[in-house]
């Protein structure tokens, strides 16, 4: 079914990718990026296409728990990988702590970069290397925000990191 959505007649490769905990067997042309796979045939449009060249971070997702620009990954190269997108982190009724913190801190205006910011921030927390506000700013530098919500984004992450230090939370996707 997935392959039909990508059009017929093109050469395809078979890949198995776990997306938000669900195993998907896909036949896809090799030139399809993970970003285009997510937003197109899989209809997971939470992940955004900003620059499409690894310069803005809007397309950030977690691959095997690590944050990566999905626009620069050929989906065919991800056989066996586990991908988590913004849709896999939380739901409107059960927000991931990072999503909740972004809402509470008004950490966005237009919201276009937000899914990438949140996935990147979740990756940052998991990496466990941010110890200070300066660390947060540096380690979030791969996510641009044209509205300039940076200070509120850093506030949101700081709050989650603080809560994390007090009481580690389990990832919603796990």
């Amino acid at each position, binding site marked *: 079914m997935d392959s039909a959505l990508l059009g017929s007649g093109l050469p395809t490769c078979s890949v198995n990718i776990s997306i938000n905990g669900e195993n998907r067997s896909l036949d896809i042309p090799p030139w399809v990026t993970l970003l285009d796979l997510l937003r197109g045939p899989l209809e997971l449009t939470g992940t955004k296409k900003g620059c499409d060249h690894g310069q803005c*971070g809007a397309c950030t997702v977690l691959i095997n728990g690590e944050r990566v620009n999905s626009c620069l990954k050929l989906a*065919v190269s991800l056989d066996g990988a586990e991908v988590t997108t913004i849709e896999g982190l939380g739901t409107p009724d059960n927000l991931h702590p990072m999503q909740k913190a972004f809402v509470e801190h008004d950490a966005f205006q237009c919201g276009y970069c937000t899914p990438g910011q949140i996935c990147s921030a979740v990756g940052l927390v998991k990496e466990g290397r941010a110890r200070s506000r300066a660390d947060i700013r540096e380690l979030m530098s*791969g996510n641009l925000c044209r509205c300039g919500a940076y200070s509120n984004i850093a506030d949101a992450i700081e709050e989650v990191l603080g809560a994390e230090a007090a009481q580690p939370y389990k990832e919603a996707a796990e």
Partner: protein
Amino acid sequence: MRRFDYTRAETVHDAVVALASNPDAQLLAGGTNLVDLMKYDVARPGAIIDINRLPLKDIEELPDGGLRIGALVSNSALAYDERVKERFRLLSSAILAGASPQLRNAATTGGNLLQRTRCYYFYDPSTPCNKREPGTGCSAIGGVNRIHAILGASDKCIAVHPSDMCVALAALGATVEVEGPDGNRDIDFADFHRLPGEHPERDNTLQAGEMVIALRIARNHFNRNYTYLKLRDRLSYAFALVSVAAAMEVVEGQIVDLRIALGGVAHKPWRNALAEAEFAGQEANEATFMQVADRLLSGAEGQGHNDFKIPLAEKAIIRALKQAAAGRPQDQVVKAIQ
């Protein structure tokens, strides 16, 4: 993106055979540069050989206390490896000065060596570029050339190598292990990348069908007096205008061993090992560091928009050597330059 055939290599041998048998093939590792170049129609491989399954993801101990780094070790894994943080602090620092966490998670060690220049014209297939299409001319000469080379350029190409990691590797004197159809060989880091000369389309000295397998770095004494100083248009997530990897061994105020390489100024990391040796035995002070800058920048030539790089590089060299001598390496998080 143009269509291409896709195969996954299961062994290094398979990858090398496939690469050697098809001049139109390219290897895919992290994809952070190649996929981008394919989107811009700059790279047009007819076949992609995915090497991500090859067993090249380990960092191994060498008998001398050095490390052997597999070509598929990610930039993040390398920069944050406890042994690298302890033994090769300059390398860790340089890696963390580059790109973003997302890109460092995907980008590989081998891929970092093989990344292409970020010259605007190289990236724009509607313009002449000798690196992209040999014989068409260089649009940067006489064009917009603020980010271009001040050293080692030719009348065919004034592009610069964009890596931070490679500047540290040049200073540390790493060895590149490659495998090709005729077996394995080692390439000194200084000989891996090349100057443009008459053939700017060739970034390095790999032969057809050869691939990078690993890097080796020998143990050194540079973990106290070192720094990676990177100057760029914004404080993070930008390529260097000028960067300096400096390392030295200092005993009682005297230089015993000096290593210094520049990024953002040439077609390859710029190092002059002969000049370095001349400073052994000299005082580690500003007067000496000014002479080092003079020697390293000997022959530097601006192209117009990038003229500022010459005085900038001079000041950056002196400042970096001061940081290294004082044992106060540049902090890659708090960007204030001490």
